[in-house]
């Protein structure tokens, strides 16, 4: 009913971004930018709520996807003229999307013009139930994070810049999820990449932040190259980049079985883009470093929304992946391995935000695992719940940072339960959900993925899904352990903490005395954040606890009603049903993990030391994140540097000397005639006179010779 409103969803934040940018110019207006940003994102959320009614499936009625056109962006049409209607119509039927126009030809006869799209990528938005789910996540979490950030960022120099970038991010992200063709999707994809870059490098005077921003950008380029090649190949293969046209072509191909090599290349290339954006092996390295950005950014972009774009891409284009028998299993294996890999790293990290970053990578791996084994509903559901609890966890981590003046080191804080009571229990809720504690959000979504995996393995008698499922269970155990390791470390035990050196979001007159690591020297003590910041956290906490229980039916219906519905659904009805069993198993696992964490990090912290001493080598490897950064440095960065050095030397020695030699010719000429410029006025006069004489003599000789002939 209000479906046309949808076209405003990206553009309201876009306008707000411009307004915020303008606010940045005037000091007095800076505070207004937060309000503008919050209002804009809330407006988009409101529109999402309004239009979602039209897309909620009722009973068995399938909901038709709708396309909302905004404007013609790129449209190249070819035309063919026919003299008879029949041939024109048959030609038009052969080419989907073409239009036939009858007109009077030059010789008075009727002629028929068939216009067929050669390359059409309009600014059109595709609305279906999957889009609605994604819009809920983006705008809902976005609004809550924006409200939190209004308090968190207060007093910061780049206040307006921050909100401008956030609005721009919402614009790009909504464009991404609403795009009806791959080109527009890529526009949004690059837009979120840009905003991510801008926001990671938000503290641009901090070298680590700048380096992290660059790293994120460069690593994403690798993925985006794959994505671009995927788009090109898709256009070559399907003659269109419009998503639903591609999907219908693919369905036709799947039925007649006429696949070619491009069908196999496309999903792998698109996958590369998805792995880059969603920080999967081997392109995950940028995400932990991305935590250099402000915490709300980590919550919004690097946990809840942008990094899930890869999952969304695969789910949106699921038929393109299904056509190749190797594509989706690859996705699943990469997802599962990443999940375990990142979870193990998270065990031994001490930086709160980095732990959450690895946790995000791990949970994204879960989503890919689910999508890879055709449990798209599970993948999207986990995306949905993960958005809630990971945003909550990051924001509570932000509260801790806020309280401790930027302190993030787990070893330097303990027993903060009394100081930060609200944050403590909010984070507890988030950790429960992350750990998949029974009846929290994470519990339901993880269960859905694991059940689907094992069902596929058992029903189709495949080894791979079972192995991956076991990896998933192991990861669940580790997840529960590291989530509560962190929580117990921060909030239980003896109360002792050290203040950090920064003061994010503190009032400008908060003086931090130089090199203060002792709390006494800091002007303010650890304190609870304001209710402006806690209110959105409460909403997120409610979501983290209840979204799974309340939402799993709805999500499943929504996803199934969209293009993400698998063409070959797993044999749900015939095979074994594992949901009940999986609930018990994963519930037990998570409780075991939580209890282990409680033992090692709350009740008997000394045991941890003794335990760690026995596995020194393992702990060292994990603490150093498997030396992946060092490995990349040695394998990629160093060789590239060497190659660059060689090129530089070639450029300097060969090319430069060539150019210099060329440049030396006129120089030498100048040196040769330089002495003639004596600076003597009459010397120049004599030169002029000699020239004049020569010309006159020559002209006269020419005239005379002309007369003689």
């Amino acid at each position, binding site marked *: 009913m209000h479906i046309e409103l949808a076209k405003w969803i990206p553009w309201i934040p876009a306008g707000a971004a411009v307004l915020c940018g303008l606010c940045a110019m005037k000091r007095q207006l800076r505070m207004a930018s937060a309000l503008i940003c919050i209002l804009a994102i809330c407006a988009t959320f409101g529109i999402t709520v309004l239009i979602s009614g039209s897309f909620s499936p009722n009973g068995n009625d399938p909901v038709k996807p709708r396309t909302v056109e905004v404007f013609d962006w790129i449209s190249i049409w070819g035309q063919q003229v026919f003299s008879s209607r029949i041939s024109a119509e048959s030609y038009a039927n052969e080419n989907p999307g073409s239009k036939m126009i009858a007109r009077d030809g030059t010789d008075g006869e009727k002629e028929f013009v068939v216009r067929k799209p050669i390359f059409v990528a309009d600014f059109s938005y595709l609305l279906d139930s999957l889009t609605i789910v994604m819009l809920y996540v983006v705008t809902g979490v976005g609004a809550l994070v924006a409200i939190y950030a209004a308090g968190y960022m207060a007093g910061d120099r780049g206040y307006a810049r921050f909100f401008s970038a956030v609005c721009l991010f919402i614009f790009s992200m909504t464009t991404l999820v609403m795009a009806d063709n791959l080109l527009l999707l890529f526009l949004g994809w690059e837009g979120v990449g840009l905003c991510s870059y801008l926001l990671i490098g938000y503290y641009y005077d901090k070298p680590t932040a700048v380096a992290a921003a660059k790293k994120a950008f460069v690593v994403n380029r690798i993925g985006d190259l794959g994505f671009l090649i995927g788009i090109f190949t898709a256009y070559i293969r399907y003659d269109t980049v419009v998503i639903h046209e591609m999907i219908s072509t693919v369905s036709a191909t799947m039925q007649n079985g006429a696949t070619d090599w491009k069908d196999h290349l496309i999903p792998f290339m698109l996958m590369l883009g998805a792995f880059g954006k969603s920080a999967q092996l081997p392109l995950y390295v940028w995400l932990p470093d991305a935590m250099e950005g402000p915490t709300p950014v980590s919550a919004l972009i690097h946990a809840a929304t942008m990094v899930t774009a890869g999952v969304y891409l695969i789910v949106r284009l699921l038929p393109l992946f299904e056509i190749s028998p190797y594509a989706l299993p690859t996705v699943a294996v990469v997802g599962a391995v990443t999940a375990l890999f990142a979870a193990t790293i998270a065990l031994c990290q001490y930086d709160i935000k980095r732990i959450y970053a690895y946790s995000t990578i791990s949970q994204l791996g879960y989503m890919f695992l689910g999508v890879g084994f055709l449990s798209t509903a599970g993948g999207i559901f986990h995306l949905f719940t993960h958005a809630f609890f990971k945003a909550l966890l990051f924001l509570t981590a932000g509260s801790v940072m806020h309280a401790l003046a930027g302190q993030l080191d787990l070893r330097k804080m303990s027993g903060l339960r009394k100081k930060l009571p609200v944050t403590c229990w909010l984070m507890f809720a988030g950790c429960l959900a992350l750990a998949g504690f029974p009846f929290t959000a994470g519990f339901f979504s993880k269960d859905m993925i694991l059940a689907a995996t094992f069902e596929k393995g058992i029903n189709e008698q495949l080894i791979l899904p079972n192995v991956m499922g076991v990896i998933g269970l192991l990861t669940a155990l580790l997840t529960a352990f590291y989530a509560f390791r962190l929580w117990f470390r921060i909030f239980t035990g003896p109360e002792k903490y050290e203040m950090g050196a920064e003061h994010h979001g503190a009032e400008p007159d908060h003086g931090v005395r130089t090199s203060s690591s002792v709390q006494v020297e800091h002007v303010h003590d650890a304190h609870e954040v304001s209710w402006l910041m806690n209110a959105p956290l409460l909403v997120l906490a409610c979501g983290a606890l209840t979204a799974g229980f309340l939402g799993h039916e709805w999500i499943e219906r929504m996803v199934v009603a969209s293009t993400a519905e698998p063409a070959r659904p797993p044999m749900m009805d015939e095979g074994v049903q594992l949901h009940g069993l999986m609930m018990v198993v994963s519930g037990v696992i998570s409780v075991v993990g939580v209890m282990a964490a409680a033992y090692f990090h709350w009740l008997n912290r000394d045991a941890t030391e003794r335990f760690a001493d026995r596995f020194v080598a393992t702990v060292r490897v994990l603490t150093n994140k498997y030396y992946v950064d060092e490995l990349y440095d040695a394998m990629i960065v160093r060789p590239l540097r060497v190659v660059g050095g060689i090129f530089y030397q070639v450029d300097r020695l060969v090319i430069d000397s060539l150019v210099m030699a060329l440049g030396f010719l006129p120089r030498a000429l100048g040196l040769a005639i330089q002495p003639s*410029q*004596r*600076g*003597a*006025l*009459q010397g120049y*006069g004599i030169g002029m*006179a000699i020239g004049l004489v020569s010309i006159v003599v020559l002209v006269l000789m020419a005239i005379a010779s002309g007369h003689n002939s």
Partner: protein
Amino acid sequence: MVVSELHSLVLSHFLFTGAVLFIFGLVGFLCRRNLIMMFLCTEMMFQGVVITLVGFSRFHGNLTGQTFVIFVLTVAAAEAALALGLVVLLFRRKRTLDPEAWGELQG
């Protein structure tokens, strides 16, 4: 056919005088070492040109040559005003009129 108002050999005599004045001016410009004298010699070159122009004007029975002399006078007057002003300025700076004294830009 246009009838000439002046026999061409008579014209040649006037051209001769004009050419001699022009060349004397040129020689003076090239070898005198006083800025003021150099400008005076250019004025003499103008005189040669003026005689030539008027001679041709009469030869062709066409007034444009004489009209052009008026423009020559304009340029000469402008040159005298500006160039002499500059000469005075230069003289005040270095107390000499020798153009060799201003050789700072030599190569």
